[in-house]
């Protein structure tokens, strides 16, 4: 049986990859994918805890997170599209009207 620690380590590594990606990537869509990766790392962590603690709360929580992530994706992609209509780019370095 795989130990709890292995799941937690995997979760932490995925979370870190996502976090590093958010800072290094320049494409808004890829940044968003990194954020989704972080969310799923959290899901993995919660579900591993829930399984090892024999608690139902965690299972419910993961469903909540998935639902919220779907809503967030809908809004996020809409925002990216409306930006793309005004300025045909999704590169965050070129989206720099406000500065100071």
């Amino acid at each position: 049986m795989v130990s709890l620690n292995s799941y937690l380590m995997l979760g932490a590594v995925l979370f870190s990859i996502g976090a590093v990606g958010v800072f290094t990537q320049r494409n808004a869509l890829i940044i968003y994918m990194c954020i989704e990766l972080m969310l799923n790392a959290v899901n993995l962590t919660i579900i591993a805890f829930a399984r090892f603690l024999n608690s139902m709360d965690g299972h419910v929580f993961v469903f909540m997170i998935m639902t919220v992530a779907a809503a967030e994706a809908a809004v996020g992609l809409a925002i990216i599209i409306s930006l793309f209509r005004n300025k045909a780019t999704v590169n965050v370095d070129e989206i720099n009207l406000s500065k100071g």
Partner: protein
Amino acid sequence: MEQVMSSINLSAIAPELILVVCSLLILLIQSFAPIRLKGWYGYVSLIGVVGAVAVVLTQPQSFELRAIEYSFNGMWVVDNYCRFFKLIFLLGTGLTILISIKYLDNEAMQHGEYYALIIFATLGMMIMSSGAELITIFLGVELMSISLYVLAGYTRNRMISNEAALKYFLLGSFATCFLLYGIALIYGSTGTTSIPAIAKFIAGAGFGGPTIVMGMALLVIGFGFKTASVPFHMWAPDVYEGAPAPVTAFMSAGPKAAAFAAFARIFMEALPSLQTNWTMLIWVMAVLTMSVGNVIALVQENIKRMLAYSSIAHAGYVLVAFLSAGERGISSILYYMLAYTCMNIGAFAVITVLAGKGEQRVRIADFRGLGYRHPIAALAMTLFLFSLAGIPPTGGFMGKFYIFSAAIKEGFVGLAIIGVINSVVSVYYYLRVTVAMYMQAPDTAAEKEIPVTVFSPALVIAIFISAYGVLSLGLFPSTYLAMVKLSFLTLL
């Protein structure tokens, strides 16, 4: 402390239900009613907000009692603490709606969705303040944030608004991940997501071990983003600058108060045993937030951006109150958030009036000579800026006074001194606007290009209410203090 456990209790969520019904109603009117009813969306939403205020005020226990009521199997809590916060949110929402009606007419963007989203965001804040469970609080945070992402990009033909929405969305959801990871680690080490149960577990186990400390640190990051505290503040200036002025007014008050409400509830109720750990972290954050916010605000030319940095600095003052914890700390958070809501929304209301169509006049230079052309608006702006700077006899002064005296009484003398120095620094940039309004000649060329000021009775009412709030909080603080004193008691 009286505790009542019950599973389903609709009266506990009555204000929230009213808001849900109201926003759905607006969406339905928008879809099915004739187009000439367009002007009424704002008023329908106002009725909803007023109804919710009435219900919050008359919820089972009155302000005199210290009762605390759990419902929905311990997921939902109604106490005076959350009720006070709900009144702050609803005040902010009501004022924002009053400001928005005319603004949206001018921008030809009068749609029902705007009001529905504002109300959904308010609903999210109310859930955050009432959640007795990390899952409930998380859902509140997300409901609020997602509505705000859309609102920030509401004027979708303006590039800068799109940009604000994108930045807010990416950094906001990034922050959510940290918040969630923190919740996950706390859940993993305590086996529960209920706030009272977590507190019981940590108290029983003595010390929760490294996992729970990690979880706590991640929660600090998550809430740091939501309250725009340094070093997690980078999104705030860009978003505040790009979002439509009424939305900026809304975002700078309610959501910040909501984030502090949930932050304080989790840290003071669930994690008080870790106080030594989080005090250190938040001490550094408070100093950085106050100093960075104030220093960068000094050099801003755009008034919305300046107020964004000022609102970062104000989050720093609230963090000072947060550190003081205990009775005094929490009551000064409540008092300050109320004063801050009045003065900040008031200031943005005046900006909405003066910025004109399409928000063309938002540089501080554009405010030159306004004291002569629009004496009343300029007077109101001066009042709000004085209050933000903390000059008596305004609510901002009393708020800061309570925060710093709480900090000194709890032994954070150094922090209070840094706070006061910062407060002095901030006077410079607030007065800069006042000086521009009263002591500098207007730029005549620019004046001819943009003749219109946005003006409507609703806006005047909003400014009047905020001004009344600022003045009465400053002149008659004892009434509000009595309310505040009853509100924090249930938390401890």
